[in-house]
C-alpha cells in the first residue's frame, strides 16, 4: 500500500519567556496523530533551545486533541521531569483533561511481560531444534503405529470402513490428478529419450534408447514423479483439511462422540491413496514410455512396433511389481504424514499453513529416503 499522510491541519507552538528562566509554551490547533512527527520534534527542539528552569504548557488554544496528541504532552512532561524542571500544564480545557486522564502514566512505563521473542542464541536454537526433531520423530512413529493398527483393524472388519469417503478421496487424489500426471510423465519421457538419444547417437547405439527409458521410467521416475505430485496435490490437502477441522474443534467433537479420529478421518484417506497411487504410477509409466515413443519414431527413425518390442523385452514382471509395491508404500507415507501434520495443528490460520507446508516437505523427504532404501534392498535381493 502506498504510504501517504493526509494533508495535516495546522497546529502551532508559541514560545514566551526568557531563555534559561521561566518559559511558557502555548500549544494551539490540532494536537493529533497526523501532526505527531513534527510536533514531537518541534516541542523537543524548543525545550532544548530554551533550556528553561520553569516550564508552563498552556493548552487554552488547543482545538482538537486525540490520544496520540495526549501522548506528546505526557512525553514532554516526562522529558521535563528527567531535566528536573518545574513543570505544569495551564488552562486545560475540559475535553483535553478528559483525554489526559484516560492515559495512565504508570501503565505507559510498564515493561513487556514477555521479553523479545527473537532473543535466543545459537546454542538455544540448536537445542530447541534437536528437541523439536526428537519430539516430532516420536509423534510420527506413534501416529504411524496407530495408523497401522487402524489399517489392520480395517482389514479384519471391512464393514467398519467408511467406503463412501474412500471413494470420494480416490476420485480427488486419483482421477482428478490424471491430467497433471499425464502431462508431466509424458514430457519427462520425451525429454529423457531425446537427451539420451543425442548421446547414444554418437556411438550408433540408438536402439538402446527404448530399454534405457523403459527401465528408468518404470523403476524410478514413474513412482517418484507420481509420489511427488500426489504429495503436492493430496498430502497438502489432507493436512489442510484435518488442520482446519482441528481449529474448528470438529476433531474434538468426533472424540466426544466416541469416534476414533484416526479411523474416521485418516484411514479413508490413507486407504484411498494406497489404492490410487500404484494405479497412477502404472499410468505414469505408460505416459512416459509414450513420450519416448514419440522421440523414437520422429527422431530416431524407429518404427513404433520396434520401439514397443524393445521396451517389452527389456522389462520383466520383476521390474513392474516391486515398483508398484514401492508406490503403495509412498502412498502410505504421503497420506499418513499429511494426516499426522493435520492433527498436530494448534492455534489458527497460520498453524494450518505451517502444517500444510510441513506435510509436503516431510513427504518429499520420506519419499526420497524410502526410495534409496528400496534401491539398496532390491539390489541385494537381486530384483
Amino acid at each position, binding site marked *: *500500500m502506498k*504510504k501517504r*499522510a*493526509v*494533508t*495535516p*491541519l495546522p497546529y502551532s507552538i508559541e514560545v514566551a519567556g526568557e531563555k534559561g528562566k521561566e518559559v511558557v509554551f502555548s500549544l494551539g490547533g490540532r494536537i*493529533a*496523530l*497526523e501532526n*505527531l*512527527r513534527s510536533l*514531537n520534534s518541534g516541542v523537543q527542539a524548543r525545550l532544548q533551545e530554551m533550556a528553561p528552569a520553569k516550564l508552563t504548557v498552556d493548552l487554552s488554544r488547543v482545538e482538537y486533541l*486525540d*490520544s*496520540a496528541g495526549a*501522548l506528546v504532552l505526557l*512525553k514532554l512532561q516526562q522529558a521535563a521531569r528527567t531535566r528536573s524542571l518545574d513543570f505544569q500544564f495551564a488552562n486545560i480545557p475540559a*475535553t483535553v483533561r*478528559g*483525554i489526559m*486522564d*484516560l*492515559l*495512565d502514566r504508570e*501503565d*505507559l512505563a*510498564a*515493561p*513487556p*511481560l*514477555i*521479553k*523479545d*521473542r527473537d532473543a535466543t542464541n545459537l546454542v538455544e536454537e540448536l537445542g530447541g531444534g534437536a528437541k523439536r526433531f526428537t519430539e516430532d520423530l516420536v509423534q510420527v512413529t506413534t501416529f504411524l503405529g496407530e495408523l497401522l493398527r487402524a489399517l489392520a483393524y480395517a482389514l479384519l472388519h471391512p464393514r467398519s470402513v467408511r467406503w463412501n469417503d474412500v471413494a470420494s478421496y480416490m476420485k480427488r487424489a486419483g482421477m482428478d490428478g490424471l491430467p497433471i500426471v499425464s502431462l508431466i510423465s509424458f514430457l519427462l519421457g520425451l525429454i529423457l529419450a531425446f537427451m539420451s538419444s543425442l548421446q547414444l547417437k554418437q556411438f550408433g547405439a540408438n536402439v538402446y534408447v527404448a530399454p534405457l527409458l523403459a527401465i528408468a521410467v518404470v523403476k524410478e521416475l514413474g513412482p517418484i514423479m507420481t509420489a511427488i505430485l500426489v504429495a503436492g496435490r493430496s498430502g497438502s490437502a489432507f493436512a489442510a483439511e484435518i488442520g482446519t477441522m482441528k481449529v474448528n474443534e470438529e476433531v474434538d467433537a468426533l472424540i466426544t462422540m466416541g469416534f476414533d479420529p484416526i479411523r474416521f478421518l485418516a484411514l479413508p484417506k490413507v486407504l484411498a491413496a494406497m489404492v490410487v497411487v500404484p494405479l497412477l504410477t502404472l499410468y505414469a509409466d505408460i505416459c512416459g514410455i509414450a513420450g519416448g515413443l514419440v522421440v523414437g519414431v520422429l527422431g530416431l527413425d524407429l518404427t513404433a512396433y520396434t520401439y514397443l518390442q524393445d521396451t517389452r523385452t527389456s522389462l520383466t514382471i520383476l521390474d513392474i511389481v516391486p515398483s508398484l509395491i514401492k508406490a503403495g508404500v509412498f502412498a502410505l507415507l504421503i497420506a499418513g504424514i499429511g494426516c499426522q501434520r493435520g492433527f498436530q495443528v494448534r*492455534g*489458527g*490460520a*497460520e*498453524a494450518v499453513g505451517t502444517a500444510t507446508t510441513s506435510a509436503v516437505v516431510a513427504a518429499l523427504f520420506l519419499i526420497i529416503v524410502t526410495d534409496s532404501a528400496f534401491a539398496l534392498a532390491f539390489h541385494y535381493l537381486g530384483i
Partner: protein
Amino acid sequence: MLKLETIQDSLQTPIIEVDELTARFGDNTIFEGVSFQVNRGEILVILGGSGCGKSTLLKHMVGLIQPAGGKVILSGIDMRTDAAEELRLVKMGMGVLFQSGALFGSMTLAENVGLPLQEYTDLSPREIQDIVKMKLALVNLAGYENHLPEEISGGMKKRAGLARAMALDPHVLFFDEPSAGLDPISAAELDILIKSINAGLGTTMVVVTHELESISSIAHRIIMLDKNARGIIAQGDPRELKDHSPDPRVADFFNRRPGTGHQPKRN
C-alpha cells in the same frame, strides 16, 4: 484533493446518515427503507432478536456489503464511492471491533495494533512503539505487547481488538456484539471501557448487541430492528422504551418475555 477539512466541516452535521437503506440477499429481503442518523459523540445501540439483520446493517455501515438500495454517508462521504482517496479517508476515520477480536494470529499484539499506524502514517518505529504502548494501556493491556493472540483470554482479545480499532484515533467505532462469549465480569469491564473511551475521547460509537445489561449500561440511544417488520420498529432512550413503549414487541424484548407473535406456538 480531499482534505481533512471535509471531515472537520461536517462537525455540526450527524456523523453517520443512513438513508432508505435496503439489504437483500438474492430474493431474501432482510430490511427495507431503513433511515436513521448517528450524532457525534453518542453511543447508539442497534438491537433486535436473532435474524433481524442488525449485523447486516452494521456490515453495510462499515462498507463490507454494498447496499441493494439507499445509501450510507459516513463523515460526509457516501460509502458507495469508488474514489480510492475518499475511501481511504473514511477507513482511516473509523474502527471496527469484530465479534471475536479478529486479531491476526501470526502477529503479536504490538504488531496487530501497530499495523494501521505503519500503513497509514509516516511515523518512525520508535513513535509507533510509543503509541502502541499507549493504546494497549488504554484498554488495560499494558505489558502485553509481545503476547500472541492465542496466549490471551477471550476478553483480552476483544480489548486488544479495540486497541487496534482505535490505533488511528478514529471518529467512529463500530462494535459487533462486544459482550458475546464473555463472562459477566469481562463483559461488564468491556462496557466500562467503552463508556470511558466515549467520555474521554468523545468517539462516536455504534454498537450491535442483544445483551440487555450492556444496553442499559452503555446506550445513549437505541434503534430496534424487527425481522417481520423488516425495518426499525422503535428508537429512542432505552430506559424510556423499556417501561413506556406502546409497542408490545419492544416491551417483550426489554422484559425478556417470549414473543407475542414472534414465534407462533405449534400445536
